[in-house]
Protein backbone atom coordinates (compact mmCIF):
# COMPACT_ATOMS: atom_id res chain seq x y z
CA UNK A 1 0.00 0.00 0.00
CA UNK A 2 1.29 3.39 -0.87
CA UNK A 3 1.06 6.34 1.46
CA UNK A 4 -1.32 8.62 -0.39
CA UNK A 5 1.34 10.81 -1.99
CA UNK A 6 -1.26 13.41 -2.52
CA UNK A 7 -1.54 13.84 1.26
CA UNK A 8 1.73 15.78 1.09
CA UNK A 9 1.27 18.72 -1.33
CA UNK A 10 4.55 18.29 -3.17
CA UNK A 11 4.75 20.97 -5.91
CA UNK A 12 5.18 19.66 -9.44
CA UNK A 13 8.00 22.15 -10.06
CA UNK A 14 9.89 20.51 -7.17
CA UNK A 15 9.32 17.07 -8.67
CA UNK A 16 10.41 18.21 -12.16
CA UNK A 17 13.52 19.94 -10.81
CA UNK A 18 14.40 16.87 -8.76
CA UNK A 19 13.95 14.57 -11.78
CA UNK A 20 16.34 16.79 -13.70
CA UNK A 21 18.81 16.88 -10.81
CA UNK A 22 18.74 13.09 -10.58
CA UNK A 23 19.46 12.78 -14.29
CA UNK A 24 22.27 15.35 -13.98
CA UNK A 25 23.86 13.45 -11.10
CA UNK A 26 23.36 10.10 -12.79
CA UNK A 27 25.15 11.44 -15.86
CA UNK A 28 28.02 12.66 -13.67
CA UNK A 29 28.01 9.38 -11.78
CA UNK A 30 28.24 7.43 -15.03
CA UNK A 31 31.21 9.54 -16.08
CA UNK A 32 32.86 8.73 -12.74
CA UNK A 33 32.11 5.03 -13.12
CA UNK A 34 33.50 5.00 -16.66
CA UNK A 35 36.68 6.66 -15.45
CA UNK A 36 36.86 4.31 -12.48
CA UNK A 37 36.50 1.30 -14.78
CA UNK A 38 39.15 2.55 -17.14
CA UNK A 39 41.54 3.42 -14.33
CA UNK A 40 40.74 1.26 -11.34
CA UNK A 41 39.38 -1.82 -13.00
CA UNK A 42 41.90 -2.05 -15.79
CA UNK A 43 44.93 -1.34 -13.65
CA UNK A 44 43.98 -2.68 -10.23
CA UNK A 45 41.28 -5.22 -11.17
CA UNK A 46 38.87 -3.48 -8.80
CA UNK A 47 35.85 -3.90 -11.03
CA UNK A 48 32.98 -5.31 -9.02
CA UNK A 49 31.50 -3.29 -6.16
CA UNK A 50 30.03 -6.40 -4.63
CA UNK A 51 33.58 -7.70 -4.03
CA UNK A 52 34.26 -4.63 -1.91
CA UNK A 53 31.34 -4.87 0.49
CA UNK A 54 33.43 -6.37 3.30
CA UNK A 55 36.11 -3.75 2.86
CA UNK A 56 33.45 -1.06 2.96
CA UNK A 57 32.04 -2.55 6.13
CA UNK A 58 35.45 -2.71 7.75
CA UNK A 59 36.12 0.91 6.89
CA UNK A 60 32.83 1.90 8.39
CA UNK A 61 31.23 3.06 5.17
CA UNK A 62 27.61 3.57 6.25
CA UNK A 63 24.67 2.55 4.07
CA UNK A 64 21.71 4.86 3.58
CA UNK A 65 18.54 3.35 5.10
CA UNK A 66 15.68 3.69 2.62
CA UNK A 67 12.98 1.56 4.15
CA UNK A 68 10.33 4.30 3.81
CA UNK A 69 10.89 4.51 0.06
CA UNK A 70 10.19 0.93 -0.90
CA UNK A 71 7.58 0.50 -3.60
CA UNK A 72 5.71 -1.88 -1.30
CA UNK A 73 5.22 0.74 1.36
CA UNK A 74 6.14 4.28 0.30
CA UNK A 75 5.86 6.56 3.33
CA UNK A 76 6.49 9.90 1.66
CA UNK A 77 7.48 12.10 4.58
CA UNK A 78 9.79 9.45 5.95
CA UNK A 79 11.08 8.70 2.46
CA UNK A 80 11.97 12.35 1.78
CA UNK A 81 13.84 12.43 5.07
CA UNK A 82 15.73 9.22 4.28
CA UNK A 83 16.55 10.43 0.76
CA UNK A 84 17.89 13.69 2.12
CA UNK A 85 20.00 11.86 4.68
CA UNK A 86 21.23 9.47 2.02
CA UNK A 87 22.25 12.33 -0.27
CA UNK A 88 23.89 14.07 2.65
CA UNK A 89 25.80 10.86 3.45
CA UNK A 90 27.07 10.54 -0.14
CA UNK A 91 28.02 14.21 -0.16
CA UNK A 92 30.26 13.43 2.82
CA UNK A 93 31.67 10.26 1.28
CA UNK A 94 32.49 12.07 -1.94
CA UNK A 95 34.18 14.81 0.09
CA UNK A 96 36.21 12.15 1.85
CA UNK A 97 37.30 10.91 -1.59
CA UNK A 98 38.72 14.32 -2.52
CA UNK A 99 42.15 13.91 -4.05
CA UNK A 100 41.43 10.31 -5.06
CA UNK A 101 43.56 10.85 -8.17
CA UNK A 102 44.37 13.74 -10.48
CA UNK A 103 42.20 12.25 -13.23
CA UNK A 104 39.19 11.48 -11.03
CA UNK A 105 39.23 14.44 -8.66
CA UNK A 106 37.54 17.00 -10.95
CA UNK A 107 34.67 14.57 -11.58
CA UNK A 108 34.38 13.67 -7.90
CA UNK A 109 34.39 17.35 -6.92
CA UNK A 110 31.65 18.24 -9.43
CA UNK A 111 29.60 15.21 -8.42
CA UNK A 112 29.93 16.17 -4.76
CA UNK A 113 28.66 19.70 -5.49
CA UNK A 114 25.67 18.36 -7.46
CA UNK A 115 24.79 15.85 -4.71
CA UNK A 116 25.14 18.58 -2.06
CA UNK A 117 22.84 20.91 -4.03
CA UNK A 118 20.28 18.12 -4.48
CA UNK A 119 20.35 17.39 -0.74
CA UNK A 120 19.67 21.10 -0.14
CA UNK A 121 16.80 21.10 -2.64
CA UNK A 122 15.12 18.21 -0.80
CA UNK A 123 15.81 19.71 2.64
CA UNK A 124 14.42 23.14 1.72
CA UNK A 125 11.30 21.55 0.22
CA UNK A 126 10.80 19.56 3.43
CA UNK A 127 11.09 22.84 5.36
CA UNK A 128 8.56 24.48 3.06
CA UNK A 129 6.19 21.53 3.60
CA UNK A 130 6.76 21.73 7.34
CA UNK A 131 8.01 18.15 7.58
CA UNK A 132 11.71 18.83 8.07
CA UNK A 133 13.26 17.39 11.24
CA UNK A 134 13.92 20.05 13.88
CA UNK A 135 17.66 19.71 13.53
CA UNK A 136 19.61 19.75 10.25
CA UNK A 137 21.57 16.54 9.77
CA UNK A 138 25.24 16.87 10.59
CA UNK A 139 27.91 14.93 8.80
CA UNK A 140 28.94 11.88 10.79
CA UNK A 141 32.60 10.99 11.05
CA UNK A 142 33.74 9.97 7.63
CA UNK A 143 36.18 7.15 7.07
CA UNK A 144 39.80 8.03 6.67
CA UNK A 145 41.76 6.11 4.12
CA UNK A 146 45.20 4.85 4.85
CA UNK A 147 46.10 3.87 1.32
CA UNK A 148 45.47 4.74 -2.29
CA UNK A 149 43.97 1.27 -2.64
CA UNK A 150 41.34 2.02 -0.02
CA UNK A 151 40.49 5.31 -1.68
CA UNK A 152 40.13 3.65 -5.10
CA UNK A 153 38.10 0.76 -3.74
CA UNK A 154 35.75 3.04 -1.83
CA UNK A 155 35.44 5.14 -4.96
CA UNK A 156 34.10 2.13 -6.85
CA UNK A 157 31.76 1.27 -3.96
CA UNK A 158 30.40 4.79 -3.47
CA UNK A 159 29.84 5.38 -7.19
CA UNK A 160 27.89 2.18 -7.50
CA UNK A 161 25.78 2.69 -4.37
CA UNK A 162 25.06 6.30 -5.30
CA UNK A 163 23.67 5.17 -8.67
CA UNK A 164 21.43 2.67 -6.87
CA UNK A 165 20.19 5.39 -4.53
CA UNK A 166 19.46 7.62 -7.52
CA UNK A 167 17.52 4.89 -9.30
CA UNK A 168 15.30 4.58 -6.24
CA UNK A 169 14.91 8.36 -6.00
CA UNK A 170 13.91 8.46 -9.67
CA UNK A 171 11.26 5.80 -9.12
CA UNK A 172 9.82 7.69 -6.16
CA UNK A 173 9.80 10.95 -8.13
CA UNK A 174 8.18 9.32 -11.17
CA UNK A 175 5.52 8.12 -8.78
CA UNK A 176 4.96 11.69 -7.64
CA UNK A 177 5.10 13.25 -11.12
Amino acid sequence: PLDPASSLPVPQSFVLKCLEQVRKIQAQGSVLQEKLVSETCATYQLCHPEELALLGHSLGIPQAPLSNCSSQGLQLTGCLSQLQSGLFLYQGLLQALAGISPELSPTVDMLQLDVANFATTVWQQMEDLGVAPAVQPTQGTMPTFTSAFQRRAVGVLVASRLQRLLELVYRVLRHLA
Partner: protein
Amino acid sequence: ECGHISLSAPIVHLGDPITASCIISQNCSFLDPEPQILWKLGAEQQPGGRQQRLPDGTQKSTITLAHLNHSQAFLSCCLRWGNSLQVLDQAELRCSPANPPAVPSNLSCFMNLTTNSLTCQWEPGPDTHLPTNFTLKSFKSRSNCQTQEDSIPDCVPEDGQSSCSIPRKHLLLYQNMVIQVQAENALGTSLSPKLCLDPMDVVKLEPPTLWAVAPRQPGCLWLHWEPWKPSLFMDQKCELRLRPQRGEANWTQVATLPSSILQHELCGLPPATAYALQVRCIRSHLPGHWSRWSPSLELRTDDTAHAR
Protein backbone atom coordinates in the same frame (compact mmCIF):
# COMPACT_ATOMS: atom_id res chain seq x y z
CA GLU B 1 55.61 71.64 10.21
CA CYS B 2 54.07 75.07 10.84
CA GLY B 3 50.86 74.80 8.94
CA HIS B 4 48.83 71.90 7.56
CA ILE B 5 45.81 71.88 5.23
CA SER B 6 43.24 69.13 5.19
CA LEU B 7 40.41 68.83 2.62
CA SER B 8 36.86 67.52 2.92
CA ALA B 9 37.41 65.38 -0.22
CA PRO B 10 40.39 64.75 -2.52
CA ILE B 11 38.20 65.26 -5.61
CA VAL B 12 35.02 67.24 -6.01
CA HIS B 13 32.38 67.26 -8.64
CA LEU B 14 32.34 70.35 -10.89
CA GLY B 15 30.38 73.11 -9.15
CA ASP B 16 30.26 71.33 -5.81
CA PRO B 17 31.53 73.07 -2.61
CA ILE B 18 34.74 72.02 -0.89
CA THR B 19 35.76 72.69 2.69
CA ALA B 20 39.39 73.07 3.82
CA SER B 21 40.95 73.66 7.21
CA CYS B 22 44.41 74.83 8.12
CA ILE B 23 46.03 74.33 11.50
CA ILE B 24 48.93 76.48 12.62
CA SER B 25 50.92 74.64 15.21
CA GLN B 26 52.34 76.30 18.29
CA ASN B 27 55.94 75.49 17.46
CA CYS B 28 55.92 78.31 14.96
CA SER B 29 57.38 80.31 17.90
CA PHE B 30 58.52 83.14 15.76
CA LEU B 31 54.90 84.04 15.09
CA ASP B 32 52.45 86.35 16.85
CA PRO B 33 50.57 84.58 19.59
CA GLU B 34 47.30 85.16 17.62
CA PRO B 35 48.36 85.04 13.94
CA GLN B 36 45.62 85.76 11.39
CA ILE B 37 45.30 82.87 8.90
CA LEU B 38 44.56 83.90 5.33
CA TRP B 39 43.57 81.81 2.28
CA LYS B 40 44.60 82.14 -1.36
CA LEU B 41 43.10 80.21 -4.31
CA GLY B 42 45.76 80.43 -6.95
CA ALA B 43 46.80 84.10 -6.71
CA GLU B 44 43.53 85.42 -5.34
CA GLN B 45 42.96 85.92 -1.64
CA GLN B 46 39.80 84.24 -0.42
CA PRO B 47 37.67 85.89 2.30
CA GLY B 48 35.44 83.89 4.59
CA GLY B 49 37.93 81.91 6.66
CA ARG B 50 36.52 81.10 10.15
CA GLN B 51 39.37 81.06 12.67
CA GLN B 52 39.33 79.58 16.18
CA ARG B 53 41.85 78.82 18.93
CA LEU B 54 41.88 75.14 19.87
CA PRO B 55 42.20 73.91 23.47
CA ASP B 56 45.80 72.88 22.85
CA GLY B 57 46.63 76.43 21.85
CA THR B 58 46.89 75.84 18.12
CA GLN B 59 45.03 78.09 15.68
CA LYS B 60 42.62 76.60 13.14
CA SER B 61 40.95 78.27 10.17
CA THR B 62 38.18 76.69 8.09
CA ILE B 63 36.96 77.90 4.72
CA THR B 64 34.28 76.64 2.31
CA LEU B 65 34.71 77.40 -1.36
CA ALA B 66 31.16 77.37 -2.66
CA HIS B 67 31.40 76.60 -6.38
CA LEU B 68 34.68 75.22 -7.56
CA ASN B 69 34.88 75.64 -11.29
CA HIS B 70 38.56 75.10 -11.93
CA SER B 71 39.54 71.65 -13.16
CA GLN B 72 42.63 72.14 -11.04
CA ALA B 73 43.62 74.80 -8.51
CA PHE B 74 45.97 75.28 -5.60
CA LEU B 75 44.69 76.45 -2.26
CA SER B 76 47.27 78.07 0.02
CA CYS B 77 47.17 78.64 3.76
CA CYS B 78 49.04 81.88 4.55
CA LEU B 79 50.04 84.20 7.38
CA ARG B 80 50.91 87.85 7.35
CA TRP B 81 54.52 88.17 8.51
CA GLY B 82 55.89 91.63 8.57
CA ASN B 83 54.86 93.12 5.23
CA SER B 84 54.65 89.86 3.40
CA LEU B 85 52.14 87.04 3.07
CA GLN B 86 53.84 83.79 3.99
CA VAL B 87 52.55 80.50 2.44
CA LEU B 88 52.67 77.74 5.06
CA ASP B 89 50.96 74.92 3.22
CA GLN B 90 49.32 74.26 -0.12
CA ALA B 91 46.76 71.69 -1.30
CA GLU B 92 45.79 70.73 -4.83
CA LEU B 93 42.06 70.93 -5.45
CA ARG B 94 41.06 68.47 -8.14
CA CYS B 95 37.70 68.97 -9.64
CA SER B 96 36.62 67.34 -12.81
CA PRO B 97 33.42 66.79 -14.71
CA ALA B 98 33.50 63.48 -12.99
CA ASN B 99 30.33 61.90 -11.85
CA PRO B 100 29.38 59.39 -9.30
CA PRO B 101 28.69 56.07 -11.07
CA ALA B 102 25.38 55.68 -12.87
CA VAL B 103 23.19 52.74 -11.88
CA PRO B 104 24.41 49.69 -13.85
CA SER B 105 21.57 48.44 -16.08
CA ASN B 106 20.47 45.46 -18.17
CA LEU B 107 21.93 42.93 -15.74
CA SER B 108 21.47 39.44 -17.20
CA CYS B 109 23.05 36.06 -16.52
CA PHE B 110 23.36 32.67 -18.19
CA MET B 111 24.58 29.32 -16.89
CA ASN B 112 27.31 27.68 -18.93
CA LEU B 113 27.03 23.88 -18.71
CA THR B 114 30.52 23.39 -20.08
CA THR B 115 32.38 25.55 -17.58
CA ASN B 116 29.66 25.06 -14.95
CA SER B 117 29.83 28.76 -14.13
CA LEU B 118 27.22 31.50 -14.05
CA THR B 119 28.22 34.44 -16.23
CA CYS B 120 26.53 37.79 -15.67
CA GLN B 121 26.84 40.91 -17.82
CA TRP B 122 25.56 44.46 -17.50
CA GLU B 123 25.62 47.94 -19.00
CA PRO B 124 28.10 50.09 -16.97
CA GLY B 125 26.47 53.39 -17.89
CA PRO B 126 28.17 56.61 -19.09
CA ASP B 127 31.88 57.27 -18.45
CA THR B 128 32.37 58.88 -15.04
CA HIS B 129 35.85 60.27 -15.88
CA LEU B 130 37.08 58.57 -12.72
CA PRO B 131 38.41 55.09 -12.00
CA THR B 132 35.21 53.14 -11.30
CA ASN B 133 35.14 49.63 -9.79
CA PHE B 134 32.36 47.20 -10.59
CA THR B 135 31.59 44.24 -8.31
CA LEU B 136 29.05 41.46 -8.79
CA LYS B 137 27.40 40.85 -5.42
CA SER B 138 25.17 37.85 -4.79
CA PHE B 139 23.72 35.68 -2.10
CA LYS B 140 21.74 32.47 -1.87
CA SER B 141 18.06 32.78 -1.21
CA ARG B 142 14.80 30.87 -1.21
CA SER B 143 11.74 30.68 -3.40
CA ASN B 144 10.89 34.33 -4.07
CA CYS B 145 14.17 35.87 -3.02
CA GLN B 146 12.72 37.66 -0.02
CA THR B 147 15.19 36.06 2.38
CA GLN B 148 18.99 36.36 2.41
CA GLU B 149 20.83 33.12 3.10
CA ASP B 150 24.56 32.38 2.68
CA SER B 151 26.34 35.19 0.91
CA ILE B 152 28.54 34.37 -2.07
CA PRO B 153 32.05 35.82 -2.47
CA ASP B 154 32.12 39.00 -4.57
CA CYS B 155 32.90 38.46 -8.24
CA VAL B 156 35.33 41.11 -9.46
CA PRO B 157 35.47 41.42 -13.27
CA GLU B 158 38.73 41.74 -15.11
CA ASP B 159 39.75 45.31 -15.84
CA GLY B 160 37.36 47.09 -18.11
CA GLN B 161 35.04 44.07 -18.42
CA SER B 162 31.29 44.39 -17.84
CA SER B 163 30.83 40.74 -17.05
CA CYS B 164 31.88 38.30 -14.38
CA SER B 165 31.62 34.54 -13.90
CA ILE B 166 30.69 32.94 -10.58
CA PRO B 167 32.36 29.52 -10.32
CA ARG B 168 30.37 26.32 -9.73
CA LYS B 169 31.57 25.83 -6.15
CA HIS B 170 29.82 29.06 -5.12
CA LEU B 171 26.54 28.15 -6.80
CA LEU B 172 23.56 26.33 -5.30
CA LEU B 173 21.82 24.85 -8.32
CA TYR B 174 18.04 24.51 -8.38
CA GLN B 175 17.63 27.22 -5.73
CA ASN B 176 17.08 30.92 -6.25
CA MET B 177 19.87 33.43 -5.67
CA VAL B 178 19.94 37.23 -5.69
CA ILE B 179 22.45 39.02 -7.93
CA GLN B 180 23.32 42.73 -8.09
CA VAL B 181 26.09 44.89 -9.58
CA GLN B 182 27.78 47.58 -7.50
CA ALA B 183 29.62 50.46 -9.14
CA GLU B 184 31.94 52.60 -7.02
CA ASN B 185 34.26 55.56 -7.57
CA ALA B 186 35.61 58.47 -5.52
CA LEU B 187 32.31 60.32 -5.84
CA GLY B 188 29.94 57.60 -4.79
CA THR B 189 28.45 54.14 -5.12
CA SER B 190 25.44 52.83 -7.02
CA LEU B 191 23.67 49.48 -7.11
CA SER B 192 21.83 47.87 -10.01
CA PRO B 193 18.34 46.48 -9.54
CA LYS B 194 18.39 42.99 -8.01
CA LEU B 195 18.07 39.89 -10.17
CA CYS B 196 16.42 36.80 -8.64
CA LEU B 197 17.14 33.56 -10.50
CA ASP B 198 17.94 29.86 -10.27
CA PRO B 199 21.11 29.24 -12.31
CA MET B 200 19.50 26.20 -13.93
CA ASP B 201 16.64 28.34 -15.23
CA VAL B 202 19.08 30.43 -17.30
CA VAL B 203 21.09 27.64 -18.89
CA LYS B 204 22.51 28.65 -22.25
CA LEU B 205 21.71 25.70 -24.50
CA GLU B 206 23.86 25.09 -27.55
CA PRO B 207 22.01 23.98 -30.71
CA PRO B 208 21.44 20.26 -31.31
CA THR B 209 23.41 18.32 -33.91
CA LEU B 210 21.60 17.26 -37.09
CA TRP B 211 22.35 14.59 -39.59
CA ALA B 212 20.60 12.99 -42.52
CA VAL B 213 19.25 9.46 -42.69
CA ALA B 214 18.45 7.72 -45.97
CA PRO B 215 14.76 8.46 -46.72
CA ARG B 216 12.52 5.41 -46.64
CA GLN B 217 10.29 6.58 -49.46
CA PRO B 218 10.26 9.12 -52.30
CA GLY B 219 9.10 12.64 -51.55
CA CYS B 220 10.31 12.33 -47.98
CA LEU B 221 13.22 13.60 -45.97
CA TRP B 222 14.38 11.80 -42.91
CA LEU B 223 16.66 13.40 -40.38
CA HIS B 224 18.11 12.55 -37.02
CA TRP B 225 19.31 14.93 -34.31
CA GLU B 226 20.71 14.87 -30.81
CA PRO B 227 20.42 17.62 -28.23
CA TRP B 228 23.65 19.20 -27.07
CA LYS B 229 25.48 16.51 -25.06
CA PRO B 230 26.07 18.46 -21.78
CA SER B 231 22.31 19.12 -21.61
CA LEU B 232 21.12 15.55 -22.15
CA PHE B 233 19.92 15.36 -18.55
CA MET B 234 17.37 18.09 -19.29
CA ASP B 235 13.95 17.29 -20.72
CA GLN B 236 13.73 19.46 -23.83
CA LYS B 237 11.36 20.13 -26.67
CA CYS B 238 12.71 20.96 -30.10
CA GLU B 239 11.38 22.90 -33.10
CA LEU B 240 12.15 21.83 -36.66
CA ARG B 241 11.94 24.23 -39.59
CA LEU B 242 12.75 24.00 -43.28
CA ARG B 243 12.78 26.04 -46.45
CA PRO B 244 13.60 25.38 -50.09
CA GLN B 245 17.13 26.37 -50.87
CA ARG B 246 16.28 28.07 -54.16
CA GLY B 247 14.69 31.51 -54.03
CA GLU B 248 13.98 33.62 -51.01
CA ALA B 249 11.38 31.42 -49.33
CA ASN B 250 10.68 31.89 -45.65
CA TRP B 251 11.27 29.24 -43.06
CA THR B 252 8.36 26.96 -42.35
CA GLN B 253 8.13 25.46 -38.90
CA VAL B 254 7.11 21.86 -39.40
CA ALA B 255 7.23 20.20 -36.00
CA THR B 256 7.65 20.61 -32.28
CA LEU B 257 8.96 17.43 -30.72
CA PRO B 258 10.09 16.31 -27.28
CA SER B 259 13.83 15.76 -27.03
CA SER B 260 13.20 12.09 -26.41
CA ILE B 261 12.24 11.78 -30.08
CA LEU B 262 15.46 12.13 -32.01
CA GLN B 263 14.32 11.69 -35.60
CA HIS B 264 11.59 12.89 -37.84
CA GLU B 265 10.34 12.09 -41.32
CA LEU B 266 8.92 14.82 -43.55
CA CYS B 267 6.78 13.61 -46.45
CA GLY B 268 4.60 15.12 -49.10
CA LEU B 269 7.43 17.21 -50.48
CA PRO B 270 7.91 17.89 -54.19
CA PRO B 271 10.53 15.71 -55.86
CA ALA B 272 14.04 16.81 -56.80
CA THR B 273 13.98 19.77 -54.42
CA ALA B 274 16.82 20.90 -52.18
CA TYR B 275 15.94 22.00 -48.66
CA ALA B 276 17.69 23.55 -45.69
CA LEU B 277 16.60 22.22 -42.31
CA GLN B 278 17.29 23.56 -38.80
CA VAL B 279 16.39 22.55 -35.27
CA ARG B 280 16.48 24.40 -31.98
CA CYS B 281 15.63 23.20 -28.47
CA ILE B 282 14.46 24.56 -25.14
CA ARG B 283 14.10 23.04 -21.65
CA SER B 284 10.57 21.72 -21.28
CA HIS B 285 8.31 21.82 -18.19
CA LEU B 286 10.72 24.22 -16.47
CA PRO B 287 11.98 27.74 -17.27
CA GLY B 288 14.72 28.01 -19.90
CA HIS B 289 15.94 29.80 -23.01
CA TRP B 290 15.82 28.62 -26.61
CA SER B 291 19.11 27.51 -28.09
CA ARG B 292 20.17 29.16 -31.33
CA TRP B 293 19.02 27.38 -34.48
CA SER B 294 21.36 24.62 -35.53
CA PRO B 295 23.51 25.12 -38.63
CA SER B 296 21.46 24.21 -41.70
CA LEU B 297 21.38 20.62 -42.89
CA GLU B 298 20.97 20.53 -46.65
CA LEU B 299 18.91 17.65 -48.07
CA ARG B 300 17.32 16.92 -51.42
CA THR B 301 14.18 14.90 -52.17
CA ASP B 302 14.43 12.10 -54.71
CA ASP B 303 13.70 12.75 -58.37
CA THR B 304 10.68 10.34 -58.39
CA ALA B 305 7.04 11.22 -57.56
CA HIS B 306 5.53 11.91 -54.11
CA ALA B 307 5.01 9.21 -51.60
CA ARG B 308 1.30 8.31 -51.22
